[in-house]
């Protein structure tokens, strides 16, 4: 196996071996604590520009599944490609087995030209990210791995300075389903399972680019999807939503959609030290006795103190108290920071889709 290493902007380095595409790359290094679901995570557009560290040490066990489509949309991947800039694991399973398998994780990474590094002490790496906050990093493969850390740590470009949403948003309008209610889905990097989850109802979905001007369109509801990066870069989208908030059509936001909703309402967002990425985040629905286990992948969050009067915190994370969902007192606009569509992760909050549909 080829030598490989990960160098962080603080000049620390982690040595391992390459199991993906043999080309060096860079990005923002983040960790995810989920124990299953790497095919879903790899293809989650919210990871655009990031290098993902899996805290669970055994990765690749069940390979990569055969493609399977429903409504012309993959049910096994969350988009049509890998969005990561690199994948860091501890123990890569070269041999894999599953009845749905098509190929190995290694081949999947190689075909899509994404580097992968194994043999890393991902726990000590995670602890570093937890203590210092997310760091920029460089994955160095083969000969590049001999580059001194001092040098490699220099000039890593922060992906958050780019318009990441533009990179992953659709550039055409697609329609799904032929149901009664018409929903416009603002695609900021929407995961496929959001569409699958909505298509269980009597709806027609129109997936549109994030900057799409829907103001002259007819629709029954709006969905603002998940997506990568700093929400504040989505100026046009925020503007459009601000318009929609003055109307009466229900709006549902997921993840980045939650932050966009808050920004459009006039609140502020900020970057978390190391984000929430995992499948075990407990979220309490305020005013009830119910706490839900949720799947999450976000680096930014809403500042609850900046929420305007008509807006309330809906869910809060009981581990760190951060906002996990907000709603407008009219009950027509609401959004959650977590992923009710799961994939990967627990499906405990899929009732939110029904709630949204019922409002239409």
């Amino acid at each position, binding site marked *: 196996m080829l030598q490989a290493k990960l160098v962080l902007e603080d000049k620390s380095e982690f040595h391992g071996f390459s199991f993906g595409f043999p080309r060096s790359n860079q990005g923002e290094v983040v960790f995810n604590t989920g124990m299953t679901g790497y095919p879903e995570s790899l293809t989650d557009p919210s990871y655009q520009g990031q290098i993902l560290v899996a805290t669970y040490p055994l990765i690749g066990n069940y390979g990569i599944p055969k493609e399977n489509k429903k409504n012309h949309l993959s049910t096994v991947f969350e988009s049509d490609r890998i969005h990561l800039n690199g994948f860091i694991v501890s123990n890569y399973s070269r041999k894999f087995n599953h009845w749905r398998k098509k190929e190995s994780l290694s081949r999947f990474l190689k075909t899509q030209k994404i580097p992968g590094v194994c043999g890393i002490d991902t*726990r000590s790496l995670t602890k570093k990210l937890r203590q210092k906050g997310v760091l920029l990093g460089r994955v160095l493969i083969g000969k590049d791995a001999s580059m001194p850390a001092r040098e490699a740590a220099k000039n890593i470009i922060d992906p958050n300075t780019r318009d990441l949403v533009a990179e992953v948003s659709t550039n055409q309008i697609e329609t799904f389903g032929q149901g009664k209610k018409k929903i416009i889905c603002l695609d900021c990097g929407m995961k496929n399972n959001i569409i699958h989850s909505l298509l269980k109802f009597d709806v027609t979905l129109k997936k549109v680019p994030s900057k799409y001007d829907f103001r002259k369109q007819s629709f029954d509801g709006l969905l603002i999807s998940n997506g990568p990066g700093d929400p504040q870069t989505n100026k046009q989208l925020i503007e459009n939503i601000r318009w929609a908030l003055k109307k009466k059509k229900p709006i549902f936001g997921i993840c980045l959609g939650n932050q966009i909703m808050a920004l459009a309402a006039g609140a502020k967002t900020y970057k978390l030290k190391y984000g929430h990425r995992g499948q075990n985040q407990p979220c309490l629905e305020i005013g009830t006795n119910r706490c839900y286990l949720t799947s999450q992948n976000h680096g930014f969050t809403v500042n609850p103190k900046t929420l305007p009067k008509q807006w309330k915190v809906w869910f809060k994370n009981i581990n760190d108290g951060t906002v996990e969902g907000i709603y407008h007192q009219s009950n027509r606009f609401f959004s959650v920071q977590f992923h009710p569509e799961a994939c990967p992760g627990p499906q405990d909050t899929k009732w939110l889709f029904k709630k949204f549909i019922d409002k239409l």
Partner: protein
Amino acid sequence: MTKSPANGKFQKILILGSGGLKIGQAGEFDYSGSQAIKALKEQGIKTILINPNIATVQTDKGMADKIYFLPVTTKFVEQVIEKEKPQGILLSFGGQTALNCGLALEKRGILKKFNTKILGTPVQSIRKTEDRDLFVRELRKIKVKTPRSIAVKSKKQAYKKVGRISYPLIVRAAYSLGGQGSGFAKNKKELEPILEKAFSYSRQVLLEESLKGWKEIEYEVVRDKFDNCVTVCNMENFDPLGIHTGESIVVAPSQTLDNREYHFLRSLSIKIIRQLKIVGECNIQFALNPKTLDYRVIEVNARLSRSSALASKATGYPLAYVAAKLALGHKLYEIKNAITKKTTACFEPALDYLVLKFPRWDLNKFRKVSEEIGSEMKSVGEVMAIGRSFEEVIQKAIRMLQTGSYGFTDWSFEFKDLEKEIKNPTPRRIFAIAAALENGWSPEKIAKISQIDLWFLHKLKNISNLRHSIKNLSRYILTRETSTPANYPHKEKSFSGKLKTIFQIKKIKNPAKIKSIIRKAKQLGFSDAQIGWHLNVNEKEIRKLRKKLKITPVVKQIDTLAAEFPAQTNYLYLTYNGTEHDIGFEKNKNTVVVLGSGPYCIGSSVEFDWCCVNAGRELQKNGAKTIMVNYNPETVSTDYDECDRLYFEELSEERVLDICELENPRGVVVSMGGQIPNNLALALHLQGVKILGTSPKNIDRAEDRYQFSSLLDQLKISQPKWKELSSIKNALNFANSVGYPVLVRPSYVLSGMAMSVAYNKNHLINYLNKATQISPDRPVVISKFELGAKEIEIDAVAKNGKVIIYAISEHVENAGVHSGDATIILPPQKLYLYTIRRLKKITKDIARGLNITGPFNLQFLAKANDIKVIECNLRASRSFPFSSKVTGFNFAKIATQAMISDPAEKKFNTLDLGYVGVKAPQFSFGRLKGADPVLGVEMRSTGEVATLGDSLEEAFLKSLIAVNFRLPRKNIFLSIGPLEAKVEFISYAKKLAALGFKLYATQISACFFNKRGISVIPVKLKPFSHKKNNHIFEFSGKKIQLVINIPNNLETLGFSRGYRIRRSAIDSNIPLINNLQVAKLFIDSLESKVELLAKPWNKYVKYQ
């Protein structure tokens, strides 16, 4: 601490324990009960505990507020409820025993009568999980699938109904022994002959859909009364469906499930727990089709279970503690995560390691028992290994079993038919797989035969491949032979018979290559000894080389959240799959390491865990920083709140040295965890580790037969004549010279393994040929076996050779019954003062002779005025908790004080007590199909109980009832073998008749007693059959309620009539007494008509 809406409502709660350890219900319930008590006490609730298992931590002072050492039966529990009037009762912390008892109490209206509320899961829900029909019906309501099964009474009916179940299917004869009459049918044609066979065994036949080869997956699910649910852990069985999960190798989390499968089953689990309205914790077992998303729910356990104990240790999530809080009505999200102390318990642990559980079997301790493992549990314990690669954990686990293997690449079996060995699982299967891989079989081929998931087999193949790379290193390593150093510990001769090699490394070439292979080997879980063995080099040499190459393990924490949040956790493991320690090592001069007891097995059980926990608590009390090393998930000692640092790690020389080098302890306690840590004493000492207590040199003197024998000679203490022999001829000569019977055993033994009594020359020859294969490499020890002698034990503590405290107890059974299987009385009731004086003198002399500091135990034979020493252990013994709780003085704590300080001079009264304690063995013969239920020199009990009484008779009867013995009302069957026994029994038969019992016996016995004026009805035993074993003891409609069978000698072989009588009693669930002295005491006790009182411990004993 959490705020509770229910707080204040309950002031007093009763907890039912699980009683003696038996197969299927072991030490895990000490752990869960102890956690429940801690949870209740935090709320200021008074706890009452009923548990006759005296060796548990939960029955310790400072745990439950009031403790009753009583049988967990409705009769006794009712008495306690009436007396204590608890407002609530917890049923889910004492296994099936507590659950069944609770259900019976409820059914009889006893709980209602005293206004005692069942806390947690409601009774209706428990019934739904216990009753198969209700269960299936309930799950059908929410469209959840269970295995399809129908019962038919004729072939015709079978053909008519078979359409409801798809082929392939299993045909089972109902009520048949060991699955006889069962078969597998792929189509109608195959069904015909199998039905024919099945109906020949039973009138009712079950047709079940076959789930052969499906994956077995478990989820541990928690729910509060507000419907908040989490799945704390999922687990995957390495062995596919068909093998009981207690008999399976299990990994957590699941390894071969993708996200869809994982969360599909998770969502189902939550749906099920909500439908069943369980409050607290449950375990759900699924069968998952390995080729589709099809599934079946196999069962739901609405209580804490072995799996939940495993899940707790695997994740660090205290399931029992949380379940107890939820039972009180708390909200799940208001309970704090006990590890992080900051985050909530309403979450699902994210693991950044994996664990593997391996069952520990002891089938070779039993005669005539089938070795095959399947749908019934036979294992007696388990081990859990933590690591960051599958290879690492399985190799650790194999070593942790302490069955003599260095790892996956080391086995001592010869496999004649590998395919059969892999197809039909036995405890050896893992090594059959290793041998097959070694023979070049592909993982695919093995997967096809075993239906084990290919992923696991590829990982095993990695280990097998690396063994070759290690062997190839020998060309780079030059060695020289050295002679055995004089002080080389004899333990180096490992008990599997291998001699550890003693080659030294002279020089190495190509260090880079060596480094990369050895590092890889360590990452795949190879031990130094294993690497050394493959390279023909001493373990210590590998350690030296490895350290020179800077290959050392790192310490990682278990924090439940994969490092996402900071946690001050002290729950630790070591791995080579990492580069950085999670923790720092301060130079604390007062750090003490306590070595735990390893897996529960026959001979080593919860009692040693009790000793370790008490030692730890005493050390902490004295200001020491304690480090616990143990890897048994069923224990309290592996609760991270019991010590300052918990290393869930191997108890091996290598690993303990690793830990000591990092932690620099003041000393190591090896004398509390039984034989496993005791065996490490000398090796650790020679490596410079300070051993607390008696010096390892003296431990060795006691362990080494020759040295100990000459010490006894010096002290003028007599011992049975013995000799170590290595040929049949010499063996026979020696046996002749001392006279038969003789006790014979291999020279290196663990707890009576493969010991036997030879009554004549043929017996002896047979044993030497078959059991031990005597040779100069494998010598045997033969000693004179004393018939009719009394056995006495002393548990004691000494300091610098001076005895501080001792307790004398006597066995009910005569010598020849393993002390672990004996019924023990404390204080002794029938010893002469002279004997006691002599025993004390011997004890003092030995303590001085070995300069003992700490715990020790002596075993004696007494015949007339002659007292012989038969065993001396310089460690805590199995009976330490019994001696402690009956006398009121905690021997483990006193021993710990002796090891670290000078305990104050004090007089302990352990002899003149106003009450009696009786310890009775708990057997699991019912679980071990075919095993001969006899007592002998090999230990066979799986657990024990002890009760207290104002008289011997009272305590004895209570302890019998506590091991599931039901007192007879009318009909007793006698089968007294030896003539002397018959004669001795005459007066007792008379007593039974006078008490109004109806006695039955075989023709000859009946005739014997009739002639002596005792009315015994002669009966002809029905032939032993597979069909109607339940009725073998039914004579003209009268059911036998007790069988007294006194075997002809202790070591009968073959399927004698005596065996059939004993076995049938077990199979028909009829109480069996198989020892003359026990029978006599039993009859005397019945005659005494003593009242069995429900008195709490503190009414008998002032415990200090």
